[in-house]
């Protein structure tokens, strides 16, 4: 069995891997959903757009489900505190996601144009709303969230839903929405041609630019005005987790201290910018596969930047800082972390290989001719 401290850090990395997997895989589906009403001007074009993700969206969505399950298993206190605290935000995500499975599967089963248009907007909501809210959630985590624990470790959230929608969090929401839409546009360029391709390319240039600008803006804002959190009591990383056993203070510039201590970490936000630039340039010169790789690297950099800046914090408490949840004290037992580590180590590569096989089998452009030939079986 690996030692407890190592496992705690491995699980911080693994949750990051799952979030990145979600952003790269389900993220491009969400981006495609967000762009659907705009890049497809008539029914056939929209069916082209939907069928680029038709065989894959369901498998990709499991990254989201699995990330939820893994957070439950590895960070039960985070699962409990974040999802109950962000109650209405979470419900908005779930309800928006409702539109995806049914939107994909039901849309083309009835020919009425009103029916189809309604589901097109449903798929838009299912893509754009979660993408925005995930960013808003990260924006709030960076600022700290008002919650505390009772003596029996019952989490109590004392904020409101509307307080989540503050300016910095909304900017973070824009980063996230632009990032996934950029990524989805690059994916669409790989799988389409003609007018849809051209509109996807325009979308890639717009949202790629927006992502870079918003990410830079959020970075400057954190540097200038968002204080971080620091643990002031001695930390025993191998200790049994108890989030009330520490003292924490709020300190200006604390979110930059990890970068100051380890200058190599600047590569992480660097990947966000460089990946974004590569994505933009490659979309501009019509190299969609490289553009997709670029936006995936940007996702790694941007999600990683939030994680690295806050480490070891996961969910800081603004109202009772000592209740803050960290990598050290919101985790499962040693045994559970170990078992789940092996489960992830065995199954993640298997999942990635059969997903790759599925994409290879379905590769190629989706065209109007394909839709007409498969009118009864395609989405």
């Amino acid at each position, binding site marked *: 069995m690996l030692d407890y401290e190592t496992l705690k850090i491995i699980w911080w990395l693994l949750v990051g891997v799952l979030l990145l997997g979600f952003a790269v895989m389900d993220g491009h589906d969400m981006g495609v959903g967000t762009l659907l009403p705009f890049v497809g001007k008539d029914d056939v074009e929209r069916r082209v757009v939907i069928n680029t993700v*038709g*065989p*894959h*969206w*369901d*498998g990709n*969505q*499991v990254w*989201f*489900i*699995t990330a*939820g*399950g*893994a957070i*439950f*298993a*590895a960070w*039960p206190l985070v*699962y*409990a*505190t*974040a*999802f*109950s605290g962000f*109650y*209405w935000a*979470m*419900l908005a995500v*779930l309800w928006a996601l409702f539109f*995806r*499975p*049914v939107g*994909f*599967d*039901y849309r083309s*089963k009835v020919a009425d144009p009103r029916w189809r248009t309604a589901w097109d907007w449903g798929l838009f909501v299912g893509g754009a709303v979660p993408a925005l809210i995930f960013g808003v959630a990260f924006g709030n985590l960076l600022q700290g969230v008002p919650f505390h624990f009772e003596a*029996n*470790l019952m*989490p*109590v*959230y004392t904020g409101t839903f509307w307080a989540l929608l503050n300016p910095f969090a909304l900017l973070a929401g824009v980063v996230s929405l632009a990032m996934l839409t950029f990524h989805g546009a690059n994916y669409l360029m790989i799988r389409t041609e003609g007018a849809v391709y051209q509109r996807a390319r325009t979308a890639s240039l717009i949202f790629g630019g927006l992502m870079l600008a918003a990410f830079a803006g959020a970075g400057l804002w954190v540097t200038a005005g968002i204080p971080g959190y620091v643990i002031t009591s001695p930390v025993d990383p191998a200790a049994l987790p108890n989030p009330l056993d520490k003292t924490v203070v709020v300190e200006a510039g604390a979110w930059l201290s990890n970068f100051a201590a380890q200058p190599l970490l600047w590569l992480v936000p660097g990947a966000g910018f460089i990946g974004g630039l590569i994505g933009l340039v490659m979309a501009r010169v019509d190299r969609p596969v490289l553009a997709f790789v670029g936006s995936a690297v940007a996702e790694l950099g941007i999600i990683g930047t939030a994680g690295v800046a806050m480490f070891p914090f996961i969910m800081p408490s603004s109202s009772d800082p000592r209740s803050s949840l960290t990598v050290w004290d919101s985790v*499962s*037992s040693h*045994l*559970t972390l170990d*078992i*789940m580590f092996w*489960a*992830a180590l065995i*199954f993640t590569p298997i*999942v990635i290989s*059969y*997903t790759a096989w*599925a994409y290879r*089998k379905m590769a190629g452009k989706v065209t109007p001719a394909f839709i007409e030939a*498969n*009118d*009864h*079986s*395609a989405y």
Partner: protein
Amino acid sequence: MIDPSVVDLSRLQFAATAFYHFLFVPLTLGLSFLLAIMETTYVMTGKEIYRDMTQFWGKLFGINFALGVTTGITMEFQFGTNWAYYSHYVGDIFGAPLAIEGLMAFFLESTFIGLFFFGWNKLSRREHLVITYLTAIGSNLSAVWILIANGWMQNPIGSEFSWVTMRMEMSSFWDLLFNPAAQAKFVHTVSAGYVTGSLFVLGISSWYLLKGRDIEFAKRSFRIAAAFGFASALSVIVLGDESGYAVTEHQQTKLAAMEGMWQTEPAPAPFTLFAIPDDETRSNSAEIKIPYALGLIATRSATKVLPGIDQLEQQAAERIGRGALAVAALEQLRAKTADAAAKAVFEANKADLGYGLLLKKYTADVAQATPDMIAQAARDAIPRVAPMFWTFRIMVALGFLFLVLFALSFWYSARNTFHEKRWLLKWAVWFIPLPWIASEMGWFVAEYGRQPWTIYGVLPTHLSTSTLSAGSLYGSIAGFMFFYTGLLVVELFLMFKYARLGPSSLGVGRYHFETAAA
């Protein structure tokens, strides 16, 4: 202290969303294997009609599957949103099977379902067949892990309470995995799903036969459904008995409530075939009993005594008394004011900690609990009898009716005369909705019968929720009702539309509406 109305509303929301999710799960479990059987026949015989069958029933499968996915997302996150204390208290054990379900089963099912629909022209026949099997195996593996999680809620083994982290922690993953309660539940639940899938195909095929449409297609579908359904209906009863035996072992309060056993009867206890149980007077009227039957079925012995409700309440009261000592000592330990004596008290009474927590419903300071409160908490330890008694009997009666229907269908299908037996075909059509009722009753017995606990004997339901306001709960329940009702209307509309259209919806030019039009 949690607002009591929040507890009731959280339960209502969870029950409603779980019941709703389970409208779609059994058909997925059963139909996925029927698709695999049909496609196997196609690959072996090369006859196009079997490919058409796989594609047409696959279309109906897809309509159902979409809502299964939609409603499943809610379940994965609802523990966190609405059951925060539960999530903290048992996430160390309960979260693991949920996460592994995602990694091992749900990815498999969801990745290959896409290829099932879109891969007909891009994969070789054999590749496509393998995909169909992997989808079926994936959905059934999902059930394995979910029922391991649920089995642990019913019979929480392989775990221990830690006062330092203030939660239950896993002590043996193997115990969790090979929990007898989970195994019995898994096989019973999936075979109920197979019955649902078979009756769905059997009933709709019968309808085509009654209408005189697509006869060859319907006859072949009927035969496959009759054979698979007969085997499944048999196993659902045999394995249901196994599941009941697990209940006898691990959850005597559930058994006593579903059998309406107010007093302990001498072994072997009689089985009450019919009665009108009254929770107020704590007695049954209009009883019809079969001597010895319950004792023999439930204990598989002629001498083991099954405790009645009176005796179980008394046992609960004793455990609550000891549990109160554990809770008081635990609070001292948490506040770091405990001496060695308090620690010893905690260790001695730790096994009854959950029972002590039952008192939290009546007093914050359990050390000061009155005998009256203890008596009340002990009464809480038994679920209400009347709902349990009835739902269990409806489920069992339906199970036997399914067995008769499938036995006859199988018999006449072996003699190749089923298509002339209009009474049998009509019976099959009218029975289409009933497996859903039986499945939901089964869940009711399992989950309502677990009350007053979320984790049997460990964590009371009234302590398991999030600290939300009642207003939030009213809002979210209204939202779920709104979305779920709308989605159900759409789903049924499409299901009826495509079931009525039949294989003509494939557009291959060989079926009723296409040949009639030509």
